[in-house]
């Protein structure tokens, strides 16, 4: 068992945890649009306030909620500097050759980094309060309308559910294979590209072989249990959405609307 990367589900009973994933996913994308749509200082104040409220509603400790930002702060710094130094707007504050620090550049830098940070935190809040199984179930029911354009949505739903089921064992197995090859002396440090690619073969080939072997056996087990295709099956009952789900969807839509109204003024 190793430390999992940030962003994985943390059990809890907060408002965000209880929100139906079928609503949480669209809400998330609506708020993401609100972040990208922010054009003024007030616009940013609005989205930052909304995210702060969400962190409170998630019941997650603040360090957990922003962990993924901390992990890539070096990268963010580079983005900021690139924008600040090469943007080339007016109000030049200082310049060295082709490099110039301008007010416009600084603004652009803050904006880009701000967007990335806010979307990262939003994403974190979603993934940390939603079980992978809820995510797939929600995706499966959100794509239902695609049935009308001929997409076999039941089969997609079945594939997604199986994929999620595979993840924990695949992860353990991959970790074991990596360890086994390292123990046998595998190294991944060659500078030459083809050699470097080849150095991953001892890792990638066994991972895929054992994953496909797993898949083959599962396919057999599914057939033994009478699986024909995803259409000919008992339909699952749909849980109705709760009041809070409708409420959340409305509030998020309003926030996004306000954001775009702010752009107008």
């Amino acid at each position, binding site marked *: *068992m190793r430390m999992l990367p940030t962003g994985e589900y943390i*059990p809890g009973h907060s408002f965000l945890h209880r929100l139906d994933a079928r609503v949480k996913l669209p809400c998330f994308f609506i708020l993401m649009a609100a972040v990208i749509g922010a054009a003024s200082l007030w616009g940013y104040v609005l989205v930052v306030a909304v995210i702060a409220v969400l962190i409170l509603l998630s019941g997650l400790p603040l360090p957990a909620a922003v962990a993924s930002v901390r992990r890539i702060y070096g990268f963010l710094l580079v983005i900021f500097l690139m924008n600040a130094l090469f943007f080339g707007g007016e109000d030049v504050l200082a310049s060295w050759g082709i490099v110039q620090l301008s007010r416009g550049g600084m603004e652009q830098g803050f904006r880009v980094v701000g967007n990335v940070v806010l979307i990262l935190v939003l994403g974190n809040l979603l993934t940390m309060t939603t079980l992978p199984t809820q995510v797939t179930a929600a995706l499966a029911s959100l794509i239902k309308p695609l049935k009308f354009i001929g997409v076999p949505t039941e089969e997609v739903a079945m594939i997604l559910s199986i994929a999620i089921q595979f993840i924990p064992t695949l992860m353990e197995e991959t970790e074991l294979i990596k360890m*086994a090859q390292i123990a*046998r*002396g595998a190294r991944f440090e060659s500078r030459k590209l083809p050699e470097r690619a080849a150095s991953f073969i*001892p890792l990638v*080939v*066994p991972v895929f072989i054992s994953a496909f072997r797993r898949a083959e056996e599962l396919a057999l087990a599914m057939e033994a249990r009478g699986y024909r295709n995803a259409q000919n099956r008992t339909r699952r009952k749909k849980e109705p959405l709760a009041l809070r789900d409708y409420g959340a969807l409305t509030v998020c839509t309003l926030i996004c609307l306000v954001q775009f109204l702010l752009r107008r003024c």
Partner: protein
Amino acid sequence: MSIQIEHLSYAYRLPSGEKVEALKEITCTIATGDFVGIMGPTGSGKTTLLQLIAGLRRPTGGRIRLNGKDINAHGYNRNLLRQMVGVVFQEPENQLFATTVEKDVAFGLKYSGLSRPEITARVQWALETMGFDFEKIRNQSPLALSGGEKRRVAIAGVLATKPQILLFDEPIAGLDPYSRQHFLHFVTKINQAGTTIIMVSHNMEALAEYTRHLLVLAQGRLIDSGPTREVFIRLKQKHSGAFGQTEAQKITTLLAKNKLVLPAAVVTYDDLLSALKQELAGGGPG
């Protein structure tokens, strides 16, 4: 290659922040050339202990010394460690990848500094030790072999580096009886040639008959250790349940209920047989 384990602990955190202590304060010494078994229920930390000894994980507490040197100390040559310590993981057949058996077995020798003919000779030796006809098997795809053959090729791949210490995690799980016996004979052979063996197993008969020392783990703690026979005798006295008892021991328990008391030292099949011979042929005491 003696291994000293001092106050070894390993803990990790789940995403939820919960701390899991996989190993707690393990202290023991494994002598050069020993054949050591590790037993314990699933989840007792056996595999983690092997991975720590192989230097594949860093302990969160304590030390592991190989010949007196801390393997996790700064500046310790880990590439050398990989050459000295070989690990055969559970279902090692999962690690095969190359286009031919020969290339797969030679994988671990890539950085050994051996010349090409030396490598070929080493591969041949490893495959023959595992009971293969080298010329017949060398150019076959390892992926197309049968399950038992794959496992033997994978073990040959670990053997090829001639490690001084060999770790096995459940090497006989899933093997049929003949393959199991072949494997255990082979391990005994390389142990007699001087290699230190540490073997994790659920199979009590294999542990009782082949290992010289035993470590018993439960819930991350070392609850007993010592010469194999002594440990089995103690386990029987301490735990009345089936855990850690060989078939021969279970039979002595049944016989004792019928007023036939055999010596406590009866642990293996051979012990049982000779004790019964004495008891039944000699007319028994009284």
